[in-house]
């Protein structure tokens, strides 16, 4: 079932007198955030705000070149600095067997380089000093001699036979090949392409999704405090996945897991940038171990941009086989993936290309096939980040760009082409040709709603008139389907850890409660929405529920917040743990009401005898009874609490229709995003205000990627995007006022029908914007142009000189 009407008017804006925020939901609905009162007072506690008595400061020396052998390191001058406590090199770490660490993709990465450096700004040594500035001063005193090696920068040349071998640390490695991956049926797909070449149409296009960076406003940081007496490590760290990190530290550093406490305090944005374990964290732990004092590491913006998890960097050849009437029959792609110097991809182990396999999109196809070669280059590691839903950004960009390429060749309206090819509502659950089972969907109403909000037909009329006058206006559409909420533990794990999540709920005697989560907010508002989920299920008001998260000593195990998995996985856990408590409450209520359990019914926090509404008890009465004096029903333990570990049976499949309107200045080639309409379907909505916020943020990301952002390199491997002057992020001047709407198609297998929204807009918006720009450039006969569509790149495209970015 799809509800196309908005549950609330999400475009309604609160004013001091319209009472929009007065309604206080005891469950789902618009509710102001519980985290805001501390954050607007400057009383949040971010990692760099943490101070521990006796704390020292760590700074990292980084490599000046992309590929070089380390000949020697002289650290004596740095050690002689009066405020320096320790200077540590890769060789020092190697003596403790700590120079290398596993990545989340079962590769290894150097904590500090021992043999050679493999990307510019790789970690080479660290200094621990009494204060931040002295630690940085001492870095200048370390003398490293390098022997330059030829770097591999252009991914297209990485597999050439004479390319220098980057990973000679791996036994028997003689090339830069990282892995190969495929999905779908190559033969069946080729058969359809062969037929279409004869009787239909085949379109092919080379499409690059450049390397970009999540660049959260807070960079990565940690404070490691290893108590020399108890042997317990407390690590405050910028992590989206505190439990997974703790387990990895236990496995790598050999510390017993119960002696590690990872605390993720307030996190200033993550977007996947704070999923990997970075050398800085490990160095800080080692430093605290060596010196016996707490150690803080806080990277600067340059370090964040040049060395931490990048995103994308896929070079894709896309192909579509279709009938001349515009029925899409098959899709095929060949991908070259740049993984940098170490395979640091954070994705389920059996999914080395993440969920790129959903590149068939929202369309009902006869066949599909993808093949990918991933390679090493002399660039920073990473790959899965920037709200990508495990590579669905790349998948959606490919298919949504290719559908527009097909529309261009067939001279069809891109909206109509999409409408003609959607998977139909009765086909769900739908198994895609690459093996993904889409849980639910009803695409046409969502598409029609977006077209209605945008005034699609009028926009096309306006465009036609403008073209007459030589003005460049473009309308771009994207329709995306995501697969989020990893994932069923039978085939999804990270380093052997199943992707399930725990949740624990305790109701106190006075009817207040605490819920403990395994996931961690980085701004998504978990402290609010998880209280709302519990409230919806057992009727305790959200303000009476404390949400505890981001502390491994005080929360149940789970894999953390990324890939839009908090609501699909942990949100389900929260609903189910509340139902467990409710079941017990019902038994206690039956005793209090002197009725059989079956005769008691529940509604909004109150238990009543069926047919006798006068006789009732509230969840608060029951909480006191559960903890109080007097008997409980036979065989029942006291207390009112429960714990659960939720293993999702499938992923959830949010979707949406986005329409973007741009104007391109023919004189300067500058692109202005004039309007952006986003209609999202994330199933049941917990808090529409937060959903709208998540969508807005992702749309701005899309403007960034489509028009401005790129981590680029020169031919020597120098990173050219090492500051926010070089890596451009949209400000309020580059983005329009967003127009959002919703449809609601609940997930059939999720306990509350919710699907996750955190990454939808980042996934769905770049193709809408690029499609709009390419549409604007139609008078120039342009069918494709690669991101980022900066004025100079658009200018080149207008002159027929468009080149893919390197």
């Amino acid at each position: 079932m799809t509800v196309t009407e908005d549950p609330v008017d999400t475009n309604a804006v609160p004013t001091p007198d319209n009472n929009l925020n007065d309604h206080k939901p005891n469950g789902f609905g618009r509710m102001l955030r519980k985290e805001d009162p501390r954050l607007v007072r400057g009383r949040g506690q971010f990692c760099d705000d943490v101070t521990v008595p006796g704390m020292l400061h760590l700074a990292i020396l980084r490599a000046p070149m992309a590929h070089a052998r380390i000949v020697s390191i002289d650290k004596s001058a740095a050690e002689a600095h009066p405020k320096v406590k320790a200077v540590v090199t890769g060789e020092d770490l190697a003596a403790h067997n700590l120079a290398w660490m596993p990545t989340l993709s079962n590769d290894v990465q150097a904590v500090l380089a021992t043999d050679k450096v493999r990307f510019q700004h790789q970690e080479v040594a660290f200094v621990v000093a009494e204060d931040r500035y002295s630690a940085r001063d001492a870095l200048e005193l370390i003398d490293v001699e390098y022997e330059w090696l030829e770097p591999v920068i252009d991914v297209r040349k990485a597999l050439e036979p004479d390319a220098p071998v980057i990973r000679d640390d791996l036994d028997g490695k003689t090339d830069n090949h990282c892995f190969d991956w495929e999905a779908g049926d190559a033969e069946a797909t080729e058969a359809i392409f062969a037929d279409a070449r004869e009787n239909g149409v085949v379109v092919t296009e080379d499409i690059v999704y450049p390397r970009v960076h999540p660049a959260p406003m807070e960079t990565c940081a940690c404070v490691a405090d290893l108590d020399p007496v108890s042997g317990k490590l407390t690590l405050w760290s910028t992590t989206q996945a505190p439990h997974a990190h703790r387990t990895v530290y236990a496995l790598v550093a050999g510390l017993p897991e119960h002696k590690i406490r990872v605390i993720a305090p307030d996190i200033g944005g993550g977007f996947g940038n704070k999923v990997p374990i970075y050398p800085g964290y490990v160095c800080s732990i080692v430093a605290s171990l060596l010196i016996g004092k707490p150690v803080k590491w806080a990277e600067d913006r340059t370090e964040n941009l040049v060395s931490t998890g990048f995103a994308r960097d896929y070079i894709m050849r896309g192909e579509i086989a279709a009938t001349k009437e515009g029925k899409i029959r098959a899709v095929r792609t060949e991908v070259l993936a740049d993984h940098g110097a170490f395979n640091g991809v954070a994705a389920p182990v059996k999914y080395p290309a993440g969920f790129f396999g959903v590149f068939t999109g929202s369309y009902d196809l006869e066949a599909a096939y993808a093949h990918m070669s991933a390679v090493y280059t002399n660039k920073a590691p990473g790959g899965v980040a920037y709200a990508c839903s495990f590579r669905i950004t790349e998948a959606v960009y490919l298919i949504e760009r290719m559908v527009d390429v097909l529309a261009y060749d067939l001279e069809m309206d891109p909206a109509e082409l999409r409408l003609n090819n959607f998977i139909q509502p009765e086909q769900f659950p739908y198994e895609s040709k690459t093996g993904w089972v889409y849980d639910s969907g009803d695409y046409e109403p969502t598409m029609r709603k977006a077209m209605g909000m945008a005034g699609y037909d009028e926009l096309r009329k306006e465009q036609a008139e403008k073209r007459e006058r030589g003005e460049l206006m473009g309308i771009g559409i994207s329709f995306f389907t995501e697969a989020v909420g990893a994932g069923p533990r039978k085939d999804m794990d990270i380093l052997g850890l199943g992707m399930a999540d725990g949740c624990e709920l305790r109701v106190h005697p006075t009817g207040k409660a605490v819920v403990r989560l395994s996931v961690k907010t980085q701004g998504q508002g978990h402290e609010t929405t998880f209280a709302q989920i519990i409230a919806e299920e057992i009727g305790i008001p959200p303000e009476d529920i404390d949400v505890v998260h981001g502390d491994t000593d005080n929360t149940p195990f789970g894999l953390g917040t990324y890939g839009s998995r908090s609501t699909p996985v942990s949100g389900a856990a929260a609903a189910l743990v509340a139902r467990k408590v409710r079941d017990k409450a019902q038994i206690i209520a039956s005793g209090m009401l002197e009725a059989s359990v079956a005769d008691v019914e529940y509604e909004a926090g109150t238990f009543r005898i069926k047919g006798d509404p006068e006789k009732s008890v509230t969840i608060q009465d029951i909480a006191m009874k559960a903890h109080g004096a007097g008997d409980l029903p036979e065989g029942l333990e006291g207390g009112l609490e429960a714990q659960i570990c939720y293993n999702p049976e499938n992923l959830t499949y949010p979707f949406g229709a986005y329409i973007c309107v741009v104007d391109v200045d023919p004189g300067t080639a500058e692109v202005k995003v004039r309007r952006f309409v986003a209609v999202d379907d994330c199933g049941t909505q917990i808090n529409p205000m937060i959903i709208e916020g998540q969508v807005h943020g992702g749309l701005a990301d899309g403007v960034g990627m489509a028009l401005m952002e790129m981590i680029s390199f020169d031919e020597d491997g120098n990173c050219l995007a090492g500051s926010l002057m070089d890596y451009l992020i949209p400000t309020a001047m580059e983005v329009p006022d967003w127009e959002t709407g919703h449809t609601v198609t609940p997930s059939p297998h999720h306990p509350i029908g919710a699907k996750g929204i955190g990454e939808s807009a980042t996934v769905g918006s770049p193709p809408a914007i690029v499609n709009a720009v390419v549409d604007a450039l139609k008078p120039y006969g342009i069918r494709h142009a690669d991101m980022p569509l900066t004025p100079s790149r658009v200018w080149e495209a207008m002159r027929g000189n468009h080149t893919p970015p390197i």
Partner: protein
Amino acid sequence: MEVTMNVNGDEVTRDIEPRTLLVHHIRDHLGLTGTHWGCDTSNCGTCVVWVDDEPVKSCTTLAAMTAGHDVRTVEGMETDGELDPVQEGFIQCHGLQCGFCTPGMMMTARALLDRNPDPTEAEIREAISGQICRCTGYSTIIRSIQWAAKKEQETPVEVSAS
């Protein structure tokens, strides 16, 4: 060197290195961690504080330059336990998500409203254009500032310490 400045109404004196940046002085020496550090290049604006009623980027200001001046940070926005309308607006309109950019945004917004009590959307966008928010996409920040403007027009309040 000894540096004395007035921070949120209190006179504070510290012995600091001449090269100390104001952002580090405020955070590390004075313990006011509401002001954040997000870049080194004056691009992100998470470090915005006021020096004598003028919003400045404290990451590119030496602490010593503010000796003898008035510095106001996010911790000084509240008056007698009452939130500034700008702070209230950010809560009411979901103007923040992770909250990292928020203190800087609010300091700039407060300065804007003190000079222009009824700014247009374009004026607000321009006022915050030296600051980056990675979470909100800016629309809700603009609404938050409009909320505060409206609130102040309806209930004249004592705006800002001057």
